[in-house]
């Protein structure tokens, strides 16, 4: 098992190097050099320009520059934001919990609805329920979520007034920042109203962000379940006289979940991309909104650092999924 994990870890290294290469050259593809970028509209006089170039090591060969970049990255130095003068990593870390909180709620929403819907659709294959699940999930999969967000907002916030329009919590509440997760922090604050406010702020964004993963999970669960239900070992289980519930939930589901877990893990990418849109619409102070604003402000260190961190996170989650896959599937665990 350890060997299995180690081998997977080794495979991640080249991918990570590739990502750093990408972000390193990304910034160099932009017309104009970094000094001019930093100076912006004002411009820089040539003498000062040369001095800054030397100071930042930009006059050295590209390979050396890359080595410096890697060394910085490994030390956790991802540069400073041009607009706020804050270290990029620090900005990221303060905003990240908000994105994680939203993504987790969205994933939870997607799993709680998508998994049972997929299982039931497979068990009742060909029924009206099955057809509805398939149609709804394909619609969800095709959904432009920014529009979906607006529609939900229009109906539930504007017309019905059930949920707040944007933000993480009502402005009348003040909650101490302990963990960065508003749900936990508001619980700790002992103010019931704050917790309820936080929860109601989470509902619409979670639904919006969870829509595509929900569709993917439901479809994947259904097809995986259908495949497993046709396997010989399901017939064996039934021949033992097991109750249908036991056959479906113990014998079939365990096997059907293996690809589903992989798919849920792969949704991390979808979630982070979706977070950019969702956070922008709901004014959710998270990483996605931060990145888009940085692009509009042409704050390149933030763009560069942000993309590097997000990509690294996705790789790590995929690695985790891979390892988890090995734990669930004994055939992988025993060598091969």
């Amino acid at each position, binding site marked *: 098992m350890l060997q299995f994990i180690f081998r997977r870890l080794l495979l991640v290294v080249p991918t990570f190097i590739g990502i750093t290469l990408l972000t390193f050259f990304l910034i160099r593809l932009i017309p104009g050099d970094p000094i001019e970028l930093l100076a912006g509209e004002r411009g820089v006089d040539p003498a000062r320009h040369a001095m800054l170039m030397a100071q930042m090591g930009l006059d050295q060969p590209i390979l050396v520059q890359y080595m410096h970049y890697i060394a910085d990255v490994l030390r956790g130095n991802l540069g400073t934001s041009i607009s706020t003068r804050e270290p990029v990593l620090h900005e990221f870390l303060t905003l990240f919990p908000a994105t994680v909180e939203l993504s987790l709620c969205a994933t939870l929403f997607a799993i709680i609805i998508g998994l049972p819907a997929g299982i039931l659709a497979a068990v009742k294959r060909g029924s009206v329920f099955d057809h509805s699940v398939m149609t709804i999930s394909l619609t969800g999969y095709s959904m432009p979520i920014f529009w979906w967000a607006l529609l939900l907002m229009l109906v539930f916030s504007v017309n019905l007034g059930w949920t707040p329009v944007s933000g993480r919590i009502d402005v009348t509440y003040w909650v101490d920042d302990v963990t960065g997760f508003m749900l936990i922090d508001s619980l700790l604050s002992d103010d019931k109203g704050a917790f309820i406010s936080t929860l109601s702020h989470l509902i619409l964004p979670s639904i919006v962000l969870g829509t595509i993963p929900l569709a993917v999970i439901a479809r994947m669960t259904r097809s995986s379940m259908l495949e497993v239900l046709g396997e010989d070992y399901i017939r064996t289980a039934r021949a033992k*006289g097991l109750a249908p519930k*036991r056959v479906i939930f113990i014998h079939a589901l365990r096997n059907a979940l293996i690809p589903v877990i992989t798919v849920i893990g792969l949704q991390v990418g979808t979630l982070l991309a979706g977070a950019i849109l969702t956070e922008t619409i709901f004014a959710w102070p998270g990483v996605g909104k931060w990145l888009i604003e940085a692009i509009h402000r042409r704050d390149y260190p933030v763009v560069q650092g942000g993309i590097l961190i997000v990509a690294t996170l996705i790789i790590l989650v995929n690695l985790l999924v891979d390892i988890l896959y090995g734990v669930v599937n*004994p055939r992988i665990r025993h060598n091969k």
Partner: protein
Amino acid sequence: MALLSIKNLTVTFGEGDNPFRAVDRISYTVDEGEVLGIVGESGSGKSVSSLSVMGLIDYPGKVKADELTFDGSDLLSLSANARRKITGDDIAMIFQDPMTSLNPCFTVGYQIVEALKVHGGGSKKELKARAIELLKQVGIPAPESRFDNYPHQLSGGMSQRMMIAMAIACNPRLLIADEPTTALDVTIQAQIIDLLVNLQKARGMGLILITHDLALVAEVAHRIVVMYAGQIVEMAPADQLFVTPRHPYTQALLRSLPEHSAGHARLQALPGVVPGKHDRPQGCLLNPRCPYATDRCRKEEPGLQPYPGNSARMVKCFYPLNDEGSPAV
């Protein structure tokens, strides 16, 4: 009274006025301690008929029968719950491909204990002890350590032994073995058959042995049922069937065996294939492939009748073969 009694069992797939009959009005009985061989080409409805005895035919398949009784109780009128109490307990089944018939996610020990638990139960320790005892009975070396193996760690022969252990776990009175050796190496096949027969004798079980391998049932079965396109075409005591086949199809099957065609220059094969969903002929289903077919065979369908002068034998043919192997006209 017969242990299992089937009368006019029909299994259909598909909707409409003319659904496909995978099994077509078959009747047979199995007694306690009897080995019944069911023989036929693939697609002849052997497996489907036994799955319907197990209650494992799913929608869109439909099972109909005038009688389907096990030990006097009508299986078709039982509730799904009551039916499951019999399935896996009194009637057990093993399948063709042992490698895919065991759940890859659980240890074999777990899967055997599960069978014990669902039809009886007992403490965890007891169950494990019984499971290991079963593994010993089916001839698995070092059963204690094999108990914790996953299916992919076992060979095909070993997996089939596990399947047998699981099937006999609850002391079934009837065991159905559906092509139990087809997926195994030739060297293992005889071992598995020996094991099945020894267990059958020791426990006095009824055994239905389904196979397309005539040579195999010849040695083991007491009585043999020959199926073609979902129908029974001949039923006879094993020793008689091999000497004097009464149905042209049985004759053709026997002639395709190497040991039966010693006198001929080459093996005789039956031309054509078993009719499928769309190409069922009128009259006797065998008529396009039958060398003796007459106009009557193409228009009318013969019934399964006792062979004149021998009530132990049934044959579904207008012109059953005589002792010389030619049709009685």
